[in-house]
């Protein structure tokens, strides 16, 4: 399939130009004018590439845009204005823990000593970072109750893969070759079954019960000598703590399987529930959620993994070790022969981990417990404020987030959850997560986090209630939303049917050869 060549011009399709306010931007490629730019690095001698055989050389230079620095800066600053962000407003995106991102974290990661350190620098040159990483491992062990932590995984899903590969290695080492199934609840994140598939397991899905927890009887029925692991998110994606967690874990272990905890929702239980101490064998952290490292438009994050004693030998290499003399070093290749090996290059997304470290040190143990108390209090308070305008399917105390549904609203007015979400944009908010978890129809998953003031929570509740009123009085107003965003709803079908995934209006022939 070839994407159609479409000429883009700067014109009415970018909408009105205003002195302030949203203004769509031409692409870098449209802004390019041959001959602009230059001056950042010295010119090398003309013969620099002389001894490189011609068959290895690029025949035609890449048609990259040519702009001066002022244009580049203005382009990206104007694009930034088209984004909603935590720094600009309330972002109650359930399951994503969009809390405030402390500025000292950004400052810290940019310190030259951290930023300029090469990942293959000898240990002797890397003592500061190694100490930080080691202390972070220790802190995450305390928070999770796990025996050891690897900081290597680059994201939550990467942590899941790392954890499940260790589960596989554990069973294989015991000669338990028939354990080929991973059980997940139907409320789980999509990454859980996708991870199981990547690691060569088949997925068995168990339903939730009417209280929103894992159906214990269904789980018991699904467990068998073929079960390798059960992956649970606790609190669940419905924002509910599995109050039968002890029975659940007993059942998993009685079947000879291991228990994996998806730590996406750890923000609810810091200092209240330590998964390793409770009997989970392995878990991942989403430091971009719980420890605010930030989200970066979708990444980078980091997904450290904690394990209990049973999985210690299989941790990916290298770990950070402290020597008896107080110095720090990376584990050497082959030092732990049962390791699952490498899951990435080098030893971890250190820049992200520096931020997590700063966040944890800033809070200390008491501060982290307060984080969870405030996050849970805010969620329950907000839930209580929605008073009848939306249905709350599981009416018991929630943890850091809760599910509401616009199903009755849809039946009464034809306004769907998607419309409610889009209308929230007009009211100045980022919408909550919608249509997840999959098990609640027309759902909104709302996570306020601990860093939002009570005034913000009140105003957001008012906005949701007002939208419900609008849905009854003027449904088209809601169905047509957003009205105030830089663009209106998009034609997603055409985007997928005729994918235009790159700029094609320029070819190398149109720009002069830089040689």
């Amino acid at each position, binding site marked *: 399939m070839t*994407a159609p060549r479409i000429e883009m011009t700067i014109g009415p*399709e970018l*909408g009105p130009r205003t002195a302030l306010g949203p203004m769509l931007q031409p692409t870098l490629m449209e802004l390019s004018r041959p001959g602009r730019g230059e001056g*950042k*690095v010295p*010119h090398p001698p003309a013969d620099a*590439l002389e001894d*490189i055989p011609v*068959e290895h050389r690029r*025949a035609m230079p890449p048609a*990259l845009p040519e702009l001066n620095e002022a244009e580049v*800066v203005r382009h990206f600053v104007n694009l930034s*204005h088209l984004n909603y962000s935590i720094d600009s407003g309330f972002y109650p995106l359930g399951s994503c823990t969009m809390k405030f*991102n*402390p500025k000292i974290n950004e*400052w*810290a990661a940019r310190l*030259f*000593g951290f930023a*300029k350190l090469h990942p293959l620098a*000898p240990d002797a*040159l890397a003592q500061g970072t190694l100490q*930080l990483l080691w202390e972070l491992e220790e802190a995450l062990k305390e928070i999770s*109750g796990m025996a050891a932590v690897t900081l290597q995984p*680059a*994201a939550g899903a990467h942590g899941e*893969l790392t954890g499940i590969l260790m589960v596989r290695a554990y069973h294989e080492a015991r000669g338990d070759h028939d354990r080929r199934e991973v059980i997940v609840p139907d409320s789980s*994140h*999509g*990454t859980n079954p*996708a991870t199981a598939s*990547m690691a060569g397991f088949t997925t068995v899905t168990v339903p939730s019960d009417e209280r929103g927890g894992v159906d214990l009887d269904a789980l018991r029925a699904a467990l068998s000598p073929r079960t390798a692991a059960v992956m649970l998110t606790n609190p669940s994606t419905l924002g*509910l703590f599995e*109050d039968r967690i002890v029975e659940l874990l007993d059942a998993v272990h009685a079947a000879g399987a291991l228990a994996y905890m998806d730590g996406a929702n750890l923000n609810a239980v810091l200092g*209240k529930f330590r998964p390793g*101490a409770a009997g989970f064998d392995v878990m991942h952290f989403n430091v971009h959620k719980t420890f605010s490292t*930030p989200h*970066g438009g*979708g990444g*980078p994050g980091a997904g450290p993994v904690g394990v209990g004693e049973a999985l210690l030998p299989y941790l990916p290499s290298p770990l950070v070790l402290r020597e008896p003399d107080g110095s720090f070093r990376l584990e050497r290749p082959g030092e732990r022969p049962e390791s*699952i*090996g*490498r899951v990435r*290059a080098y030893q971890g997304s250190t820049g992200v981990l520096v931020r997590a470290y700063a966040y944890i040190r800033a809070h200390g143990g*008491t501060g982290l417990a307060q984080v969870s108390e*405030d996050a849970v209090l805010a969620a329950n*308070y907000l839930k209580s404020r929605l008073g009848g305008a939306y249905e709350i399917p599981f009416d018991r*105390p929630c*943890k850091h987030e809760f599910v509401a549904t616009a199903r009755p609203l849809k039946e009464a007015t034809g306004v769907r959850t998607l419309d409610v979400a889009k209308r929230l*944009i007009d009211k100045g908010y*980022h919408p909550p*997560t919608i249509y997840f978890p999959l098990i609640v129809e027309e759902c909104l998953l709302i996570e306020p986090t*601990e860093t939002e003031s*009570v005034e913000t929570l009140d105003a957001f509740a008012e906005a949701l209630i007002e939208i419900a009123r609008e849905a009854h009085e003027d449904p088209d107003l809601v169905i047509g939303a957003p009205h105030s965003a830089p663009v209106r709803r*998009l034609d*997603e079908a055409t*985007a997928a049917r005729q994918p235009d995934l*790159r*700029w094609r209006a320029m070819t190398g022939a149109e720009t002069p050869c*830089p040689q």
Partner: protein
Amino acid sequence: MPYGPHTGDDRARMLAALGLDSVEPLFADIPASVRAHGLDLPGPEPELELAARLERLAARNRVDLASFLGAGVYRHYIPAAVDQILSRGEFYTAYTPYQPEISQGTLQTIYEYQSLLAELTGLDVVSASHYDGAAATAEAALMTVRATRRGRVLVSHAVHRHYLDTTRTYFTPAGLVLDELPTLADGTTDLAELERSLAAGAPVAGVVLGQPNVFGLLEPMAEAARLAHAAGALFVAVVEPVSLAVLAPPGAYGADIAAGEGQPLGIAPMYGGPYLGVLATTDALIRQIPGRLVGRTTDLDGRRAFVMTMRAREQDIRREKAASNICTNQALCALAATVYLATIGPHGLRDVAAGGAAKARELERALRVAGAPRVHRAAYLNEFAVHVPGAQRVHAALLDRGVLAGLPLARWYPDDLLLRDALLVCATEVTTSDDIARFAAALAAELGAAGRVPAEVAR
């Protein structure tokens, strides 16, 4: 709590609305037997003290040496504009652009990233979702398996050691086979052996070679691609993006997929990350590429806009049948690469690549004179291995002389007799002639101390 807004009154008001006088009942669903009561961590630290602690830790690292270390991560000049843009909260405190109406900033920058990388690689479709070069290489190898429905890949021994190891970690549990292709004495991949491996054994899904390879050498990519295609396999090129300003792009020599590490495009070394996995492919494989893709479309009023597209293949919808479990889009790192490329421009990028090549030749001459000749004969761009007797000892000794003498290859190839006494060194546009002279002099002194003073230096 340092970042929470709640006063005692605020908490009391919220509790009162819930009919509570403490938060305890909200945690009553945690069974007593597994209920924790606090964390044994050091106390909260005021920002002033925390800042001082972080500065002390950062200062304990040594980043002042004359460095010739590359091996997949390269020091380049990063224009000041890059970090200024990256520091904007509108970019770094947003999440995945699920709501396109209020995410056009992130969406358009990803589209621009896709466009620029497509141009650099000579391919059509680029995903900004991947963690680093190793993960991108592993995903590329898995793509060949899905696309061909075959279960075996051939990876050159001269692909980055960590990428090879990571791909093996991804492959083994899924029951897939990864065979290593040996190298010739000149340091490039043995294509005769490639041809034999393609003909014998299980059908091959993909062939993976690095350009430049792990030793900095230029591989016969076009011929390797031709052999792979003749056997019905796909060809994966593991590339370094800055080099593509001057080296033939993967699309030109028939690669079906390009993977690589995007760190050289404006991202700090940062002791291992966060980085940017480059992954690009042809239109023919558009539905095999994992991760987020951004497409151009229009809104209801016909205005041009951008949106995440072909999302139905992803884990949140497809679950166990998804192409990958990837959820990340490495947007901020992709933004860094985009701003870097826009700021440095095509001429600047060529100067960066060619400048590194020029410095590397200066380095090669200086090290040869100092008694450390190249190990391999094949052509190189800006990185190469040199023979140094007792390489690990010499490397350690040079640290004391203020020189980080690249990577002792014994760390990665302890059993290889040739590489055990070799250092992998690189130069980039930031390498200075003074640094090179310092390295050469220190090396000559070390080798001289070991009783092997080359004639030129002794004079």
